[in-house]
Structure formats: C-alpha cells, structure tokens
C-alpha cells in the first residue's frame, strides 16, 4: 500500500517521517523481520486512513495518539484474521505466540527498544553498505523509493532492485529481532554507526531535498544515535563522538541555508541562528567520548565541528588543520582532502594553499574548482573565474549553479 506523500497538509508528511519508522519497528517486534511487509502494510494503512479521515474530519487533537490507536486496532484485526485462518485451515497456532501478540504495547520504552533492534536488523553485514543505507532510509526514515533514488542519484528501478535483494537477504539471514545477542550487537555497532553517520550527512549535505525534509532527516539520525547512548552495550566512546558530531553540525542547520535553500558560507552565517542548546549537548557527549584513549574518525570530526562552533580563537584554524591532518591519515576521502586544504589556507594563506590544492588533482570534483576559485579570487581573477566555470560544469545542483554564477558576476564586477 502506498502512502500519499503529496498531502496538502504539512503535518501528515512530517508525522509520517517521525512515526512511520517507530510504528514499523514496534510492529516488527511482533511479526518478526520475516514479515516486515505486514508491519509496513499496517503502518502504511494507518497513514492512508489518516490522510482520508483528517481531510474530512480535520486533524485530531493528538494526531500521534490517533495514529497509534488505529495501528493497534489494525494489528488486532490482523491477528484475529490470522487466528481464524490458522485454526480453521491449519493446526492451532502456538500459545506462546498469542501471548506475545496480546502484549502489543506502544509505550515509549517499547518504541525505543524496538527501534534499537530495528537499527541493528537493518545494518546487517550480509548487505552492502549502500544497500544498508537504502534500507535504513526506507525502513527507519520512511523514505519512498523515488526519494532514495534521488539521494543516490540513481534510477528508481536500480533502487527498487537493490531494496528487494537487501530485504530477501534479511529474510534468508533469519534475523531475530528479539534475540539480539551481546556479541551480535558489538560486532554490528560499527556498521550501525556508519549508517547513522551517512544518514545524518544525507540530511546535512544533500542538496536534493527540501529543507524541512533534510531537518527531519538529521533529527532522526540524532534521535536514533541518542537511543544507542541510552543502552550500556552500545554506549561506547565512538557512539558518543558520533552524537557529539551530529549535535555540533545540527546546531548550524538553520544558519547554513537561506530561505531559498541556497548554501550560506560559514563566514557569512548568522551566528544568532546557531542552536546553543545543541552545542552544549555536543560538548557533553564529546566529553563522554573521551573517557578512554580511543580516537576514532568520529572523534576527529567532532573535534573539527567543535572548533567551528567555538568562539574565534587565534589558534582555531591551526587546531582545525591539525585535526584534518589526522583525519586524512585515518581515512582518505576527496572531501576531507579539500576541507583540509581550506583549513590550510586559513593558517598559511591562499598562495601556499593553492600549491597544496593543485597537488590534489581532483579535476572532476565541483568543490575542488570552487576551492581553487576561492583561493585565486584575490590574486588571479581569470583563473578564479575559470575554476568557478569548471565548478558550474560539474555540479548537478541548481541552487549551487546559481550561487556560482552570482559569484562569477561579482568577480567580473571587481575587475572593471
């Protein structure tokens, strides 16, 4: 059953993203992951009913409670239906199962436990990382196939196939949500953290979605990581470091795009829009993350994000550069290499940074050309413009194109 995303109501899509995953997770605990489709069908049916009912009767006083009441009834109906089917057609169903069914509860504790289990179920190493993220987007965040395809810049068909395969793998693996062993949790935690990290980044850096969707995305990643810190088994320094990173980044979410969805450069961000509560939380989790000597890439990234939110300090960029130096030694990525060069420019000036940047030779990368355009802007306008033009050629984002075109126009004006 498909849920209508294009509701006129702003509330329903928002609620959908918030509650669909929770509902599915709790239901899955009852049906088992083998029957995840049943859980999803009930959750989808519930939202469909909401969209029909609310359009006629208006939004109920407590929409979330309304949704859960409907889901609960639908589940009861389903079990009644199955019970009749099983007793009449097959042998009587096992009594233990009925007991579990009657337990059906939607308390907040149950929700957080179910979701924790769900995260680990989705982050199954039998699937590739990409497939895991696709599943996480779909199951944990309620994204449609089209939306996932947008996020991965792939065709809908490709994603559909990938999801089908991934789901089949989960079923074959016969994963039991209820019997998650301590070793299983520990061995999967790395993948889980990586998935949540990518989930957050998708919301934070993606230019594909509307701002509200991206915000939902980030807060969902934060919420799920927070659940991990509440369980002693998963409350590791790495988890805390990742959560600190998300809090620091999340604190700047409002400031980093304007109303039109265009990116606002760090230097131009209105710091009054930064969320100081989140920054304080980030500090708290970063301290938690440092209670032993373990340094992960999340620690380093959280450190960088911390310095970004910290007040101006003459050594700020030196600190950031040194953290990037360590990060690039832990794991190479083009974006880390480019960000490191930006920090290098802040410490050693644009001329030296140009030499560093040009060594990278990431000529197919938009941000590479943007960086060189920025670095050349003060000394060599022609080169700066040429690089910005290259950047336009490589970017797929319309808003980014517009920002770059504006920047070129500005540079051309300074020339005359």
């Amino acid at each position, binding site marked *: 059953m498909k849920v209508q995303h294009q509701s006129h109501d702003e509330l329903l899509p928002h609620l959908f993203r918030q509650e669909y995953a929770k509902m599915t997770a709790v239901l899955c605990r009852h049906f088992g992951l083998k029957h995840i489709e049943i859980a999803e069908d009930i959750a989808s049916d519930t939202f469909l009913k909401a969209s029909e009912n609310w359009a006629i009767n208006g939004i109920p006083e407590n929409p979330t409670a309304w949704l859960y009441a409907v889901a609960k009834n639908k589940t009861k109906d389903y079990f009644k239906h199955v019970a009749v089917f099983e007793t009449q057609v097959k042998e009587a169903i096992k009594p233990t199962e009925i007991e579990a069914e009657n337990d059906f509860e939607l308390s907040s504790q149950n929700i957080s436990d179910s979701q924790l289990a769900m995260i680990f179920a989705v982050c199954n190493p039998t699937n590739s990382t990409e497939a895991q993220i696709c599943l996480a987007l779909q199951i944990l965040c309620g994204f449609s196939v089209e939306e996932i395809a947008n996020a991965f810049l792939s065709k809908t068909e490709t994603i559909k196939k990938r999801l089908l395969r991934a789901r089949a793998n989960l079923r074959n693996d016969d994963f039991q949500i209820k019997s998650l062993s301590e070793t299983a949790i520990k061995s999967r935690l790395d993948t889980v953290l990586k998935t949540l990290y990518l989930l957050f980044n998708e919301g934070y850096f993606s230019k594909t979605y509307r701002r509200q969707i991206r915000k939902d995305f980030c807060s969902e990643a934060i919420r799920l990581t927070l659940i991990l810190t509440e369980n002693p088994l998963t409350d590791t320094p790495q988890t805390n470091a990742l959560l600190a990173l998300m809090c620091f980044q999340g604190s700047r979410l409002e400031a980093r795009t304007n109303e039109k969805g265009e990116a606002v450069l760090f230097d131009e961000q209105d710091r009054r829009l930064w969320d100081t509560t989140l920054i304080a939380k980030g500090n708290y989790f970063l301290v938690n993350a440092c209670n032993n000597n373990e340094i992960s890439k999340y620690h380093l990234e959280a450190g960088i994000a911390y310095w970004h939110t910290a007040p101006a300090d003459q050594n700020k960029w*030196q600190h950031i*550069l*040194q953290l*990037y*130096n*360590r990060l*690039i*030694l832990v794991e*190479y990525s083009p974006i*880390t*290499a480019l960000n*490191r*060069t930006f920090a*290098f420019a802040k410490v050693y000036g644009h001329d030296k940074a140009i030499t*560093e940047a040009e*060594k*990278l*030779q990431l000529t197919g990368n938009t941000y590479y050309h943007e960086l060189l355009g920025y670095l050349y802007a003060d000394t060599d306008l022609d080169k700066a413009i040429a690089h910005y033009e290259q950047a336009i050629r490589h970017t797929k984002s319309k808003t980014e194109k517009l920002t770059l075109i504006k920047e070129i126009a500005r540079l051309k004006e300074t020339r005359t």
Partner: protein
Amino acid sequence: MKEFALIFRLKDIADFKPSPEQMQERMNWLASIAAQNKLVDKGNTLLPIPGSAKTVKPNNVVTDGPYTEIKEFISGYIVVSAENIDEAVEMAKANPIFDQVGGNIEVREVLRRE
C-alpha cells in the same frame, strides 16, 4: 603507480623529539601526501633510545642501539605511491624537518614480496 619507502635518518639523537612546531610541520607534510591519496603506509617511528634499540651481529654479539658505530640513525619510515622515483624524491624534498636539523631521507622502490 609504484611504491617507494621513504626512510628517515637523523644525525643527532637530540633532534628525535621534535618541538610542537616541528610536529605540526611534519604532520602538515605527511597529511599533504595523504591528501593526494598517495600515502600507502603511514609507517612507524623507530625508537633510537637506550633500551629500545639493539643491533644483533654475527657470533651472538649484541650491541646497544645503532648509534655507536654509525653517525646517522634511522628514525622512521613511510611508504608512498608515485608514478616514478622522481615524484617520490619531490615528496621527500618537501619534508620540512630535515632541512632544519640535518639528516637525510633515503628513497627506495618497494618490491612487494609475493
């Protein structure tokens, strides 16, 4: 792409402990290679201090450290990837520390054991 080991030699054991500034410069240099995705192995530091360095010779002769007989001692190594030895040499040239304190960097092509 070929792989080259850069083997660092220092002259004076007093230079083994770098100042914070030298540390930063060395990290900048190392990270610059990593940023080009040309760092194959960030290598290790080889401790030259008494108790951490011995040399085993024929007839079961064991001496303290390498520093009694040769002036320069190996302080560490990294492995980089480069098109040819000239590129690897350019990377070594960019190292800021050896200019300041003396010593040398030996560049050697790595032949991987099968």
